[in-house]
Each structure stands twice: as C-alpha cells, then as structure tokens.
C-alpha cells in the first residue's frame, strides 16, 4: 500500500504510523447501513480500517435519501448492504469488506460479532440495541452507541475496559408504545451525519488508543442550539454479568396479538381483497399506499373505529409495524372476538412496495 494514502493523519504527532497500523489490523462490525451507519462506514473505510463488516437487510427507499447520503436515486429498491459495499470498495480497495445481508437476531448475533474486535451500533430500534449490548457483554467486545431523536443525538462507548454498558443507563427495554422511531417522529437529514461521525471518531479512538474514550460518559447533542452535554454514569455489576442472550428481544407490548409476516401478507394481498387499515398519517398515506387500503390515522382511531368491519379480519399496517400494533392494542378491549392482525415490520418490510415509498 502506498504510504502517501494516509500521510495526512500519520504525520499527526499523536497518531503516527503506529495508530495507522492498528487501524489496518482492526475488525469493525457496523450494525445498520442507514443514517448512522453511512458516515461510520464511509470514514472508517476511508481512514484505513482493515476489516469492515456491515449488517442490514433493508432496501434503499426514496424517504431514506435525505439522510442516507451514500445512496443515489438509482439505488432505490436495491439492497443497502450490496450498494454500500460496492461504493466502499471503490472508495478503498484495500479494505476487507464483509457483507452480512440479514437483520441481527438472537440466533446470529453471537456468531457474527465474535469475529470482530469492535461493534458500532448504528441500528434504529430498541430490540437490536439491547441485543447488541447483551451479545457484546457476553463476548467482552466494546461497542459504540449512537441514537437519534428529532434534532437530538446520543453517543457513548459501552463495555469498554470494564466500563458500563447500555443497561447501566437504561436497564429495561422500553415498551413498543413509549418511544417513537424516525419513521414516526421524523429526523433532520443532517443529524445522523453528525452523530454517526461522532461514533466513527470514538471507534478510531478505541482502536488506536488516542485521546479519551466516551466510556462512562453519555454525550448529548442538541442540533437546535448546537449544544453538547456530557453526563457521567457508572457501571452496575448486575448489568455486566450476562451469560446468555434473552429468549426474545421483541418489543414488549404487554399484550398478545395476531400477526402476519411480510411474506405471507404479500401472498394474501396477491390472492384477493382483504380489509387493510393503514394507520399512518394522512400525508404519509397520500404519498404512497397499497391499493384499496383504508386510511385511519392512529390519532383518529378512537373516533373512527366504527368504520372497520369487525365481522371479517382486519389487517393493520403502518411504516414499521409499531403504530399498527398500538392500533390493535387500542381496539382489542372493545372487540375481543374480532380478528385484528398486525402486518409485522410494516411497509418497510414489504419488498414489492417498500422501494416506492
């Protein structure tokens, strides 16, 4: 490799060829090839991290483009991991790029993470975040956490040299109804760029040993005032001893409900008419919806529930499958014998449709 390539960082007194060597030997797994994952993998790849694995199963959608700046309009509908890998390959042909086209789950997490030194949590949901935490604690791997809410972001480094974990900050996974995700709540396009770059910086520090790692410190960023705050926290022994993964990392909804997988739902759609209630907001519905679906935004459900025919099955759909669950929980007490079915993962997981939105 031409040493000129990294010369602008290797001439840094506190970095040098030694740190560059450490980057070259490092194996980093980035979980999520979305808003946070893109700046993380782009910079780690550019700066010379030797092995970079990327986990995701999503496809590029039109509504991703305002923040997921690696993807072009011509990538819509394509696998994010496949597109990202080809762009990263062109950016730096020395990197050993590894594709993991899947969602991280309890069956593949340990096996996947085991062969990396460091994990970057660039996911967009609580089940994955708690799964990454538990798997990293079991395997003694540090991980770089980043998360967003509207104009705000959080960054920290967990499980680093005996430091605290995600559960030391938030012991229990929130329930499905508590905290919205980006699809529901929205996110300013540049926010994941800022937060993801802060994560990439922490990854570089963990690998090379330069500076002070954000271990035991939660960095809060508020984009509206360009404010940074650091909160110190310490580890709780009960969170640092995990010997196996939980049986289940699904969002705890406290209630049971019937659900249908995206694949089965697509077959049902193709096989004939069904009663489909789309509980997204009116503007989301107008920009794209499945033919013959009925739009009853979640906020109007209490008032408009009479519009649903409870004598036949009702399928509930939203962008990611969370609001549709809430809709079912809201209706269940009134219609105990009705068949209210959640479309798991929402429009995001319906491959035939997801790309159009």
């Amino acid at each position, binding site marked *: 490799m031409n040493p000129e390539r990294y010369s602008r960082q290797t001439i840094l007194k506190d970095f040098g060829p030694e740190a560059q060597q450490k980057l070259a030997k490092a194996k980093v797994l980035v979980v999520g090839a979305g808003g946070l994952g893109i700046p993380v993998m782009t910079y780690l790849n550019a700066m010379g991290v030797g092995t970079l694995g990327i986990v995701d199963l999503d496809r590029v959608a039109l509504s991703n483009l305002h923040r997921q700046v690696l993807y072009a309009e011509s990538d819509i509908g394509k696998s994010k991991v496949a597109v990202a890998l080809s762009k990263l390959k062109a950016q730096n042909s020395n990197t050993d790029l590894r594709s993991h086209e899947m969602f991280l789950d309890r069956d593949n997490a340990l096996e996947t993470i085991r062969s990396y030194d460091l994990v970057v949590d*660039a996911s967009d949901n609580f089940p994955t975040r708690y799964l990454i935490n538990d798997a990293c604690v079991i395997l003694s791997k540090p991980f770089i956490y980043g998360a967003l809410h509207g104009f705000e972001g959080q960054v920290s480094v967990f499980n680093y040299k005996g430091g605290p974990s995600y559960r030391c900050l938030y012991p229990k996974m929130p329930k499905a109804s508590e905290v919205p995700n980006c699809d529901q709540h929205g996110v300013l396009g540049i926010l994941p760029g800022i937060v993801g770059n802060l994560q990439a910086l922490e990854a570089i520090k963990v690998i090379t040993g330069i500076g002070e790692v954000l271990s035991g410190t939660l960095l809060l960023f508020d984009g509206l005032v360009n404010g940074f705050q650091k909160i110190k926290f310490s580890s709780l022994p009960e969170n640092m001893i995990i010997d196996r993964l939980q049986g289940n990392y699904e969002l705890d909804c406290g209630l049971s409900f019937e659900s249908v997988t995206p694949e089965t739902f697509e077959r049902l759609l193709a096989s004939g008419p069904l009663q489909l209630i789309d509980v997204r907001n009116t503007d989301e519905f107008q920009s794209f919806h499945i033919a013959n679906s009925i739009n009853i935004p979640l906020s109007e459900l209490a008032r408009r529930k009479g519009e649903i025919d409870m004598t036949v099955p009702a399928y509930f759909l939203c962008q990611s499958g969370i609001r549709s669950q809430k809709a079912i929980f809201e209706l269940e007490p009134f219609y105990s014998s009705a068949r209210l079915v959640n479309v798991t993962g929402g429009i995001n997981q319906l491959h035939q449709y997801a790309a159009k939105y």
Partner: protein
Amino acid sequence: MEILLFGIAKDIVGKSKIQFAAGEGQPTSVKELRQTLESAYPDLGRLSSMAVAVNSEYVRDELILKPGDEIAIIPPVSGG
C-alpha cells in the same frame, strides 16, 4: 432549580426546560422529582427507563436535591 428535557420527555412536556421556583413545591429528592413530573405529565410516568442526571451526573432516586441543582431528564432514544 432548572430541569432540562431531552428526547421524548421534551415532546411530552412541550418545552425543553422547566423551572421550579425556590421554596414550596420544589422536590427534595430525585424520587420526589419523578413523582412531581409524572403527576403533571402522566405520559412521563409511562416511560419504563428514564435517566435522571444532576449536575451532569447520572443519579439514583435516593439522591437529595439542592436548590441550585441542574437536572436533566434523559429518556432512551432509538432512531438511527
């Protein structure tokens, strides 16, 4: 006593800061602060993990609050 709100807590309350005037009604512990906030904003009570920091340090419910404390309410966020 100033309370800074982050994430969903800011959305629930509808502003990024709450001031408690000195004296009456000012919570004396983190536990009391949680109760005061939850009774004023019931949706805050539904959050299963809501971190509280006092003077930039994560604290437990037992901590006694002092008049000049700067408090931050930091719920978990999931977006990516």
